[in-house]
C-alpha cells in the first residue's frame, strides 16, 4: 500500500450527500445563473448603451424563484428528517432539526427581503444583477453557518455571509452614509473576524480538533485548560460582534442606517438568526461542559445588551436607527434564553428567532415602502406623521409589528418573550427575567412613539415640508408585508404548533436535550 493510498484510507469520505446541503446548493446555482443571465441582457435594448450596465430584468425573478425552490428544499429536508438526520461531508455539516428549522427561518427571511427589495431597488438605482447575486450568496453563507458542525465551516459560513453583506451595505455608492456604513462594517467586521479566528486557533490548540461534537467529548473530562477558556472568550467576542451584543454593538446603528433599507432588514433578521444559530450550537452543545464559565459572561452581556439597546433606542428619530437599537435589545432577550441553559430556553431561542424575523422584516418592509425616491425618508416624527389616515392599511400593519416587538398579546412577540421568561425562571435566573420585563416596558415607549406619530399627529403639525409620505406599495411588497402580518398574528394566536416544532428541533442538540424538564 502506497503512502497516498494509506492517506486516502485515513480520510475516507463518509456520507457525502447533496441532500444535506440542498438549500445552499439551489441558492448557489441560482446565484450564478442570476449573474450569467445578466450577460444575455447586456447589449439588448435594455441598457442606456451597448455593453453598459442598465437596470436588470430577469435577476429579481430568478433570485425569487431560486429562493422559493430553496424553501421547498428545506420543507423536503424537514419531512425526511428522521431518515436523513446525521453528519455529512466528514462531519462538516449537521443535518438535524435545529439546522433545518433555522435554515427555514433564514431562507424565509431571504425570500421576504427579495419581495421587498424589487420596487425599492428600481427607485434607488441599485437594481443590478450583482445586487440579487449577493443577496443569494449571503443566504448561502447563512445556510452553511446554520448547518455547520465544524469550526472551519462556522468560520467560512460566517465569512461568506458577512462579505456579501459588507458589499450590499455599500451598494448605494453615491450616498455618503452608505459608504460610511460599509467601511465601518468592513473594518470592524474584519477586526472581529480576527478575534474569532484567534479563538478557533486556541480551541484547536488545546483540543486538537475542530469538529464541534469531538471538541465536546474531549473537554468533557478534567478541568478546562486556561488556553481553552481564552479561546472560548474570544469566540464570545466574535459571535457578540456578529449578533451585535453590547459592548460589541457600536457598528450596528451606523451600518443599519447606511445600508439600503431592505438590506438593513435582511441584516437584522437573516444575519442575526444565522449568527445566533452558530452561537447556540457552539455554546449550548459543544461547550456545554464549560457552562459554569460562560454562563456568567453571557449573563453580564445580556443585562448590558437589554439595557443599553432599549435606553439608546428612546432617543432615536430615524426609524432605521431605532430598529437597529431595537434589534440590539432583542439580541439581549435571546441571550437571556441562552443563559437559561435548558431545553426550554433553546426552544425559546428558535421560536423567538422565527417570530422576531417575521416582525422585523415586516417593520422594515413598511419602512421600505415609505422610503420614497432619492434620499430615504425615515424620520419617525416627520415622515410617519398622519400615516394612519393617508395609508390606513400600511399603518395598521406597522402598528401590529410595533405591538409585537413590544411584546403585547396576542402577537408572536408576546409568546416569544413568555417562553424566554419561563425558561429563565426555570433555570433560577429570576433577576434576569425581571430585568427582561423592565426592558420590555422601556421598549414600549419608543415602539408606541411610532404608533402615536401615525395616528395622533398630522403631517402639517409635525413640520414636514415635503408633504405627506407616499407609500410605494407594489404587489410584491404588499405580499411580503401581508405574509409577515399573518405570521406575527398566527404565531401569536396559535403558538402551540410552533413551540412544539421548536422543541422537536432542539432534540437534535444532544446535550441540551438531556436537560428536558
Amino acid at each position, binding site marked *: 500500500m502506497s503512502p497516498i493510498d494509506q*492517506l486516502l484510507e485515513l480520510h475516507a469520505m463518509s456520507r457525502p450527500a447533496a441532500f444535506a446541503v440542498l438549500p445552499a446548493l439551489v441558492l448557489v446555482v441560482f446565484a450564478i445563473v442570476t449573474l450569467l443571465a445578466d450577460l444575455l441582457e447586456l447589449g439588448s435594448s435594455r441598457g442606456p448603451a451597448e455593453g453598459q450596465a442598465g437596470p436588470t430584468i430577469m435577476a429579481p425573478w430568478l433570485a425569487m424563484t431560486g429562493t422559493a425552490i430553496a424553501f421547498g428544499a428545506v420543507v423536503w429536508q424537514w419531512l425526511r428528517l428522521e431518515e436523513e438526520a446525521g453528519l455529512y461531508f466528514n462531519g462538516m455539516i449537521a443535518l438535524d432539526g435545529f439546522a433545518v428549522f433555522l435554515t427555514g427561518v433564514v431562507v424565509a427571511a431571504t425570500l421576504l427581503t427579495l419581495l421587498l427589495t424589487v420596487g425599492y431597488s428600481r427607485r434607488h438605482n441599485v437594481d443590478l444583477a*450583482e445586487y440579487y447575486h449577493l443577496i443569494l450568496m449571503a443566504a448561502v453563507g447563512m445556510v452553511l453557518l446554520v448547518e455547520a458542525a465544524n469550526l472551519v465551516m462556522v468560520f467560512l459560513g460566517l465569512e*461568506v455571509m458577512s462579505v456579501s453583506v459588507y458589499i450590499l451595505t455599500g451598494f448605494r455608492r453615491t450616498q455618503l452614509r452608505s459608504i460610511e456604513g460599509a467601511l465601518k462594517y468592513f473594518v470592524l467586521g474584519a477586526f472581529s473576524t480576527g478575534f474569532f479566528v484567534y479563538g478557533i486557533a486556541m480551541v484547536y490548540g488545546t483540543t486538537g480538533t475542530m469538529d464541534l461534537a469531538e471538541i465536546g467529548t474531549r473537554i468533557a473530562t478534567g478541568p478546562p485548560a486556561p488556553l481553552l477558556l481564552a479561546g472560548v472568550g474570544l469566540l464570545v467576542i466574535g459571535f457578540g460582534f456578529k449578533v451585535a451584543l453590547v459592548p460589541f454593538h457600536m457598528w450596528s446603528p451606523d451600518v443599519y442606517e447606511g445600508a439600503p433599507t431592505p438590506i438593513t432588514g435582511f441584516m437584522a433578521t437573516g444575519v442575526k438568526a444565522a449568527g445566533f444559530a452558530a452561537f447556540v450550537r457552539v455554546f449550548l452543545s459543544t461547550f456545554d461542559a464549560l457552562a459554569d464559565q460562560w454562563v456568567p459572561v453571557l449573563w453580564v452581556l445580556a443585562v448590558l445588551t437589554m439595557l443599553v439597546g432599549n435606553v439608546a433606542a428612546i432617543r432615536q428619530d430615524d426609524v432605521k436607527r431605532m430598529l437597529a437599537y431595537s434589534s440590539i435589545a432583542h439580541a439581549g432577550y435571546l441571550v437571556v434564553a441562552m443563559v437559561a441553559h435548558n431545553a426550554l430556553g433553546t426552544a425559546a431561542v428558535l421560536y423567538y428567532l422565527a417570530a422576531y424575523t417575521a416582525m422585523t422584516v415586516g417593520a422594515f418592509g413598511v419602512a421600505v415602502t415609505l422610503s420614497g425616491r432619492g434620499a430615504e425618508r425615515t424620520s419617525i416624527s416627520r415622515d410617519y406623521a398622519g400615516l394612519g389616515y393617508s395609508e390606513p392599511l400600511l399603518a395598521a400593519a406597522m402598528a401590529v409589528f410595533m405591538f409585537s416587538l413590544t411584546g403585547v398579546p396576542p402577537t408572536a412577540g408576546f409568546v416569544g418573550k413568555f417562553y424566554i421568561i419561563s425558561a429563565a425562571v426555570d433555570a433560577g435566573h429570576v433577576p434576569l427575567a425581571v430585568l427582561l420585563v423592565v426592558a420590555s416596558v422601556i421598549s414600549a415607549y419608543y415602539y408606541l412613539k411610532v404608533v402615536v406619530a401615525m395616528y395622533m399627529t398630522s403631517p402639517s403639525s409635525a413640520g414636514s415640508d415635503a408633504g405627506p409620505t407616499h407609500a410605494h406599495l407594489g404587489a410584491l411588497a404588499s405580499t411580503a408585508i401581508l405574509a409577515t402580518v399573518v405570521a406575527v398574528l398566527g404565531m401569536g394566536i396559535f403558538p402551540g404548533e410552533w413551540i412544539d416544532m421548536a422543541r422537536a428541533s432542539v432534540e437534535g442538540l444532544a446535550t441540551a436535550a438531556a436537560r428536558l424538564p
Partner: protein
Amino acid sequence: MTGVDLAFWFFGTLAVVTSVLVITNRNPVASVLFLVIAFFSLAALFVTLHSHFLAAIQVLVYAGAIMVLFLFVVMLLNLGQPQWFDVQARPLVIVAAALGAAFVGLLWKGGLLEWTPTVTGPAAGVPEDVLGSVEAIGSALYTVYYLPFIATALLLLIAMVGAVVIARRER
C-alpha cells in the same frame, strides 16, 4: 533547547515584532516591506512544522504576488500625506495596549508557558514521508475538507463580484 526550538523563538519573535512595526509605521511603503518580513518568518515557522509545501506557497503567494499587489496599490494611491494615518485618539491607544497586555498577562498567569499539548492533531497517523507534502494537503482538501474548499471558492467569487460592484462606473 534544540535547533527547532531556537528557530521557533527566532522567527516567532521576528514575526511579532515586524507585525507590530507594520501597524505603527507611518510610511505605507515601509509597512508593506515589514509585512514581507512577517510573511517570510511565518513561512520559516511552517518549515519547522514539516509543512514544506505551505511554506513554499506562503512565500510564493503572500510574500510574492500579494505583496506586489499591495505595493502597486500603495504607489498608485500615491499617499503623499502619511499624516492621514496618524492615530488621533492617543488615550484609546493606551487603553487598547493596556487591555492587550492584560490579556497576555492572564494567559501567562493561567499557565500558558507550562502548558503542553496532551492531544495529537490530525497529523497523527499520517505516514512520515507524506506529512506536509503536496499529496497530503491535496488529499485532505479533496476528502475531509471538501466542503470548506468549495465554500472558500464561493468566498473568492463574492470578493470578485464585490470588487467589480465597488469599482463600477456610476450611471
